[in-house]
């Protein structure tokens, strides 16, 4: 049993390194291009990918979360309030705040909602996004209500302003990279624990795994990663507004993670990049991108359960195997731990 597990872990490591490298590569963009359309696309892709990481972390534990916009809103509004009320502009402090506040918020919340699994968890997280909207509208003193928060001071990095387009993209890239590193570190370190929970939570518990420990930790980290995406979004739009965190936007983040391939981190990167790019192609007719998302979700669920990355790597593995004319190596499968239900 150790060999397939080992090789699955190796494939996972490749996907994680590739994800981090791809995101880090965006740092070059501001130095080779000054096309605002490319900046805008890169910003959107990175924010989408970061938010999809959050979905990916929860899927490790077989939990499908709709709560990404909730935690994005907490992260985004935290940085807006810090900037407006307390004059905090340092990007590192703001980034830390946008990660820690949602993560800390997720702990007590997790104690309640993580008792639920399957469909009930989906429903409770969906209800959370609706509550988020209502709370944002009903607390104008803090969140600006339906006007949102505008006029945040420009973020700084050790005293230098990060206000222009180029700097905004650098901030987004930095936040996405932080999100990727955290996601990789957590899902790598706790790979076995999460896999045990995904396979059979009851069995894992009876074998001595303190399940709620790991679920709460995973939930908090996923919330923090969403918060980073929220900060990046608010920083890009220069405003924190309830419509940026609409309940049904969570569907997009789930679509990125699942269409890209839910069994590896690279899936979120590929899914986010492909779908945001494709959505941008239909930019003038935004409704077509929703039609395409819906269609792709149906196709992936019915025909290609492993998503883009899983299907491609399976095909590559098959080609590689036939070239070397030996039977299919388990290493070519996405992971050995994905439960086929």
């Amino acid at each position: 049993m150790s060999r397939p597990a080992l090789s699955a872990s190796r494939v996972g490591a490749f996907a994680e390194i590739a994800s981090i490298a791809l995101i880090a590569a965006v740092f070059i963009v501001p130095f080779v291009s000054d096309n605002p359309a490319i900046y805008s696309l890169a910003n959107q892709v990175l924010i989408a990918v970061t938010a999809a990481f959050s979905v990916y972390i929860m899927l490790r534990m077989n939990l499908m979360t709709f709560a990404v916009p909730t935690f994005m809103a907490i992260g985004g509004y935290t940085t807006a309030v810090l900037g407006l009320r307390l004059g905090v502009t340092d990007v590192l402090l703001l980034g830390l705040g946008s990660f820690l506040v949602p993560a800390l918020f997720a702990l007590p919340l997790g104690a309640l909602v993580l008792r639920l699994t399957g469909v009930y968890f989906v429903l409770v997280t969906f209800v959370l996004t609706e509550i988020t909207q209502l709370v944002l509208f009903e607390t104008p003193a803090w969140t600006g209500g339906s006007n949102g928060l505008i006029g945040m001071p420009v973020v700084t990095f050790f005293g230098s302003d990060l206000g222009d387009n180029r700097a905004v993209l650098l901030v987004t890239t930095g936040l996405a990279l932080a999100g990727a590193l955290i996601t990789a570190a957590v899902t790598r370190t706790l790979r076995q624990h999460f896999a045990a929970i995904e396979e059979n939570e009851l069995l894992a518990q009876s074998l001595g795994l303190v399940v709620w420990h790991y679920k709460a930790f995973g939930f908090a980290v996923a919330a923090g990663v969403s918060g980073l995406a929220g900060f990046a979004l608010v920083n890009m739009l220069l405003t924190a507004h309830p419509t940026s965190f609409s309940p049904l936007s969570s569907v997009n983040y789930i679509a990125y993670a699942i269409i890209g391939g839910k069994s590896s981190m690279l899936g979120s990167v590929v899914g986010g990049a492909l779908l945001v790019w494709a959505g941008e192609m239909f930019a003038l007719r935004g409704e077509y991108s929703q039609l395409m998302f819906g269609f792709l979700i149906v196709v992936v669920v019915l025909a290609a359960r492993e998503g883009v990355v899983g299907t491609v790597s399976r095909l590559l593995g098959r080609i590689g195997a036939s070239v070397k004319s030996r039977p299919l190596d388990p290493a070519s499968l996405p992971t050995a731990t994905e439960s086929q239900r």
Partner: protein
Amino acid sequence: MQGIVATSLIGISLGAQYALLALGFTLIFGILGVVNFAHGGFYVLGGYIAYSAISFLGMPYALAVITAALGTAALGYLFERFLLDRLIDDHLATLMLTLGLYMMISSGILITFGPQSPAFAFPLTGVLRAYGFYVPIENLVVLAVCVAGIVSIYALIYRTDFGRALRALADDRAVATAQGLRPKVLFPTAFALATGLAGLTGALVTPILSLAPHVGDPVLATSFLIVILGGLGSVGGATVAAFLVGMVEAFSAVYLGGSKGALALFVLVLIMLVVKPSGLFGQRARGA
């Protein structure tokens, strides 16, 4: 006093609409174990089918409503039979499928009809006046149709062989199948029944409230609220919860203003999900 009575009437009328919607939603979950994210989509689709039937085909309103119910039922039947049925036991997969369908329905409507609300008005207008109370006639008509719909659903579920078969499948599919019931026939029919109900409600209610491609979102959220409150899969629970939610919405809109009532409801439902996931009337949490 007059205010309270008038508000109660609005609440009952809202409750009846919600009940019709939520019954479909809860039936699908109870019998098939599917959380139907496309439910709001079928509601909007019902509205647009009725609108098109009247504006382009010149149908009378009553016939348009029936067309809408049948049209959405047919789409629901095909969707269940050819797509959903393949993965019927995988809760997350069916959830994703209905989500995909919802995105396709709402964007399809947006592409076909454009983002603006079409002029779709209820054929009967006017106000009934009795004992000093004012009641809009359209609300009464909708209420009557909704109540008739709810009664028919109850009769169908609890008084006919079809209903017994559905309840048997919901109770224990393996045993029911062994007894000769055929899920392959009954599941698509049940799904069609539920989506037809959503379409019927849409055709009835959208001329009074509003018709636009995105009006399915709040409908979906409200259906969620009601079925969680009433207990997923519970027919009686959904009916009671629907009237409860209708009342709370009516009174909070009139006396509190804003969305405080909705916020209170959502928080109530959140607590309910955590403390008693089976809802007010659900007996057991379905293995999900």
